[in-house]
């Protein structure tokens, strides 16, 4: 690898380990921290994302919501999701969450992907799609526990947030972080981000948000995009953020133990046939059978009534 920041530790559809002799120390493990309690929903991050990544989504329609576009698309890799929630006290809470790829430590997309090298995980934790290797099957969509990847209708390839892997590789922060006007988005090593989050959570708790907490779901091995939530006990309030996301057992079976087992069973079936032929041999028809058939044809027993001889 030319750049240590682009060392690959996991590669889709690859059964052998990646080059792993180098052990990055210290600052390799990055994370984006999204503090929903500081977010004002200005969407500057959405604009920065399209600017940096040269994305121009189709202009959609307004359905009476601030959320725009309505969902992530192959050209909208991040999206402010606006949820209006009534608290038990009767207050209205406007919970705004910047949605996008969570960069799981155990990425379901990468597990499901059948194309070698179409999805990679760098040593810094970023999960990246290499579209030149993408075959457009959409397995990553089924594999993702967060419903993030989108297949383009234009080129039938999968797209999602790259965590600006190109910027991070040269020591810059992601475009959304760069542009956030309130400091709701911060970027750094995962350890630093956790510490920053802990300070924020302490502050939130002192101000009455007893359930404030960090969203770093362990079901997917933790994520390299984390949230500070006012209601960490109810992440579903934030436009359906998964409470305990994990790779679906169906996907685990399909792209896990089923693969070697099925291959072995198919090979075994063929090998069993081969050795049956070697040990028992073919079932052949010989002169006696022909003679018997001829006799059966002549015999009055095999008359049009079809009686057995």
């Amino acid at each position, binding site marked *: 690898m030319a750049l240590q920041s682009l060392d690959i530790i996991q590669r889709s*559809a*690859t*059964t052998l380990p990646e080059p792993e002799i180098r052990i990055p120390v210290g600052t390799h493990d990055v994370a984006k921290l999204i503090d929903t309690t500081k977010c004002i929903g200005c969407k500057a991050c959405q604009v920065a994302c399209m600017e940096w990544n040269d994305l121009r989504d189709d202009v959609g329609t307004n359905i009476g919501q601030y959320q725009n576009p309505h969902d992530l698309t192959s050209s909208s890799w991040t999206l402010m999701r606006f949820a209006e929630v009534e608290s038990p006290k009767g207050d209205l809470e406007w919970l705004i969450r910047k949605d996008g790829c969570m960069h799981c430590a155990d990425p379901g997309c990468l597990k499901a992907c*059948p*194309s*070698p090298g179409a999805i990679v995980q760098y040593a810094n934790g970023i999960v990246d799609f290499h579209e030149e*290797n*993408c*075959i*457009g*099957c*959409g*397995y990553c*969509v*089924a594999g993702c526990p967060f*419903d993030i990847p989108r*297949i383009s209708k234009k080129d*039938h390839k999968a797209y999602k947030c790259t965590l600006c892997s190109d910027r991070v590789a040269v020591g810059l922060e992601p475009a959304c972080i760069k542009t956030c006007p309130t400091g709701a988005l911060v970027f750094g090593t995962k350890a630093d981000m956790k510490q920053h989050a802990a300070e924020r959570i302490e502050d939130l708790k002192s101000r009455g948000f007893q359930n404030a907490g960090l969203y770093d779901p362990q079901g997917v091995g933790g994520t390299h995009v984390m949230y500070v939530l006012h209601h960490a006990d109810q992440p579903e309030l934030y436009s359906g953020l998964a409470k305990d996301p994990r790779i*679906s057992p*169906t*996907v685990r*079976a*399909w792209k896990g133990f*089923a*693969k*070697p087992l*099925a*291959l072995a*069973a*198919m090979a075994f*079936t*063929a090998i069993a*046939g081969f050795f*049956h*032929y070697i040990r*028992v*041999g*073919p*079932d*052949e*028809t*010989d*002169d*006696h*059978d*022909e*003679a*018997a*058939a*001829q006799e*059966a*044809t002549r015999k009055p027993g*095999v*008359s*049009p*009534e*079809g009686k*057995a001889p």
Partner: protein
Amino acid sequence: MNNDAPRPGTSDPQHRATIVRYTKNERTNHWLVAGAFVLAALSGLAMFHPALFGLSGLFGGGSWTRILHPFIGLFMVVAFIFYAAGKAADNRMQPRDWQWLRQYRDVISNREERLPEVGRYNAGQKLVYFAVIICLVVLLPTGFVIWRAYFSQYFPIPVIRLGAFLHALFAFGLICTIIVHIYAAIWVKGSIRAMTRGTVTPGWAWKHHRAWFRETMTHAESSRPRSD
């Protein structure tokens, strides 16, 4: 006499009297299904296990494999429906078939003389018939569910996950079934000729499918001449 490939117009008296087992249309139909199966299996395996991803090279790369696979599969299902539709009656399981299966040890040891009489198809062939039908009945709808370019957008993600898993599972079942089917054709000499040339010798029919042999004799009075 057990020559698998007698030349047309051979003067060998043993080959003048043969029994038609599969007509031209049946053979064509069978090999359309078989060809589509091989292509669908190879392209499907390429997307199933990384070790077999190289098979995608046969189809022009990963994206072409993804594009072609569902169309090949669909063609296979349609061709199989035509093939199997006319064979339901001959594949009905009968009491003697269950007895045949219970004596599987005699079956795999080539001790056919101990087995009950067999009609047009033996119990093993009937099981293959039903196994293929069951597999295709699952593969067809699950294939649509995971057909990303046109249909997946209409299904929720949990359904797509289940569809992908079931599609892989029943494709695995189908491939194993067809491996058994192909091996049986190699094992029982004269079977490949039946599906390539269309005919079998009376001795072959008498030995392997005696009830069908009788039926054929009854209908034809005597063995038919080669029709093609």
